[in-house]
């Protein structure tokens, strides 16, 4: 009786051992991948990845990293920040829950983005243990991002759909090209904030999934395999998507920081205290202000 169980346990263990040795990358797919590399009918992802990573990604990241702050520097020098009166009433716009979720997400971004850039410009830092540490921080701080992204999506999504104000807002670039205090067409969130929201949440999900795929590397997802996509092609596609989307996220992240810290004086306080200056709402979120007025909430 006992020997039967030992026998079953042994079989189970051997199957486990064989299961572990069956790699999704270096297993039987290896032959098909070598034979089909860049052949007609293949996805050509190996070639595309090599071209993009060797030639385009680094300069593009560098361009955004230098170009966006440079553009803001000029904006700050030529047009200057918007300064709103801090003497009028304050409007409560962000609940404690909003602020906590935003804070978690902000911390994760401040860890993920610099470490990601260290990886992209790894040769500048000489590689080795420092860059390796950054890859680990990059991966671990994703957990913070994951726990903030879900509540963030659901708490703000209802105000994030496109509105006629957004087109008007885009036409005048949010009113940032001059210092006139004319009411800017925008609801609770303006078109820029909406773009950032969608890029950070939906784009964030894509960043998380592609990043996770690259981090764990050797696994098999039946659903992907059923489309005839090999694991190595999935990884190549992940790397391309992760880096291309990363450029956009970096750009809007820099915009977000410039707006909150420099372009609109004191705007960052609304995410700490929850209150916005009345004048700021009146000018930058005029439709929202009207709505509040109609509801007699202010």
């Amino acid at each position, binding site marked *: 009786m006992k020997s039967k169980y030992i026998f079953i346990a042994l079989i189970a263990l051997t199957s486990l051992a064989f299961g572990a040795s069956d790699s999704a990358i270096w297993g039987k797919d290896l032959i098909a*991948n070598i034979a089909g590399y860049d052949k007609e009918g293949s996805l050509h992802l190996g070639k595309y990845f090599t071209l993009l990573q*060797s030639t385009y990604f680094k300069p593009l990241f560098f361009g955004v990293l230098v170009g966006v702050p440079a553009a803001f520097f000029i904006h700050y020098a030529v047009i200057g920040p918007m300064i709103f009166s801090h003497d009028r009433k304050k409007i409560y716009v962000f609940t404690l829950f909003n602020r906590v979720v935003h804070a978690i997400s902000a911390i994760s971004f401040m860890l993920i983005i610099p470490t990601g850039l260290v990886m992209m410009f790894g040769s500048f830092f000489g590689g080795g243990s420092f860059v390796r540490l950054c890859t680990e921080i990059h991966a671990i701080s994703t957990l913070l991002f994951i726990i903030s992204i879900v509540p963030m999506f659901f708490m703000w999504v209802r105000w994030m759909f496109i509105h006629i104000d957004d087109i008007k807002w885009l036409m005048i670039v949010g009113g940032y090209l001059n210092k006139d205090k004319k009411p800017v067409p925008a609801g609770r969130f303006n078109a820029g904030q909406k773009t950032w929201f969608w890029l950070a949440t939906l784009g964030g999900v894509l960043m998380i999934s592609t990043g996770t795929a690259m981090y764990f590397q050797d696994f098999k997802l039946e659903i992907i395999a059923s489309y005839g996509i090999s694991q190595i092609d999935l990884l190549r596609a992940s790397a391309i998507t992760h880096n291309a989307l990363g450029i956009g996220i970096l750009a809007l992240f820099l915009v977000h920081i410039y707006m909150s810290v420099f372009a609109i004086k004191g705007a960052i306080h609304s995410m700490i205290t929850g209150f916005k200056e009345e004048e700021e709402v009146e000018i930058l979120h005029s439709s929202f202000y009207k709505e509040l007025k109609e509801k007699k909430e202010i």
Partner: protein
Amino acid sequence: MSESSRLKFYCDENRCIGCDGCSVACAEAHELPSGVNRRKVVTLNEGIEGLEYSLSIACMHCTDAPCEEVCPVDCFYIREDGIVLHDKDICIGCAYCLYACPFGAPQFPQDGAFGTKGVMDKCTMCAGGPEETNSHTERELYGQNRISEGKVPVCAAMCSTKALLVGDSNEVSNIYRERVLSAGHGVKTQPYGWNVAYGSKK
């Protein structure tokens, strides 16, 4: 050195019997951890009569090595003799080299508490790494350095059918050309018979 004098591997598919001796020899010689296969024998068109053949695959030490092009930390370097090597102290284990490689050559040992991947390991053509030649550290990180001792890489050295060739690419192609040209020559198609086997030579 000119472009033609690069060291290359070539596996003669007419000779490879898929015995896996090369990959076993490699793993033993360099004391590789389990899960790291610097060399692997693959069988193509398995089960199709007349088309089935085996090949021994490892890092092919490409002339235009794509791994070197994509590496974000530039840990690769190509020796004057064409051997593609990398520095494990610089490598961050990002696996971009694996995505770029057509042969699936880069390997990643399981490392750390959560079984995450460590730094990359691949075939060195038995030429060690950037550490001091034949030092203990070099051996620990990259395995034997047989090239410095004037020896043939262990996989090709022990290949029983001499299917796996390694050396100056000109030499390798000469050997292969000779093999192709002499194919069929000197092969007895008739049985020897007693008079031939034991008879006097003419």
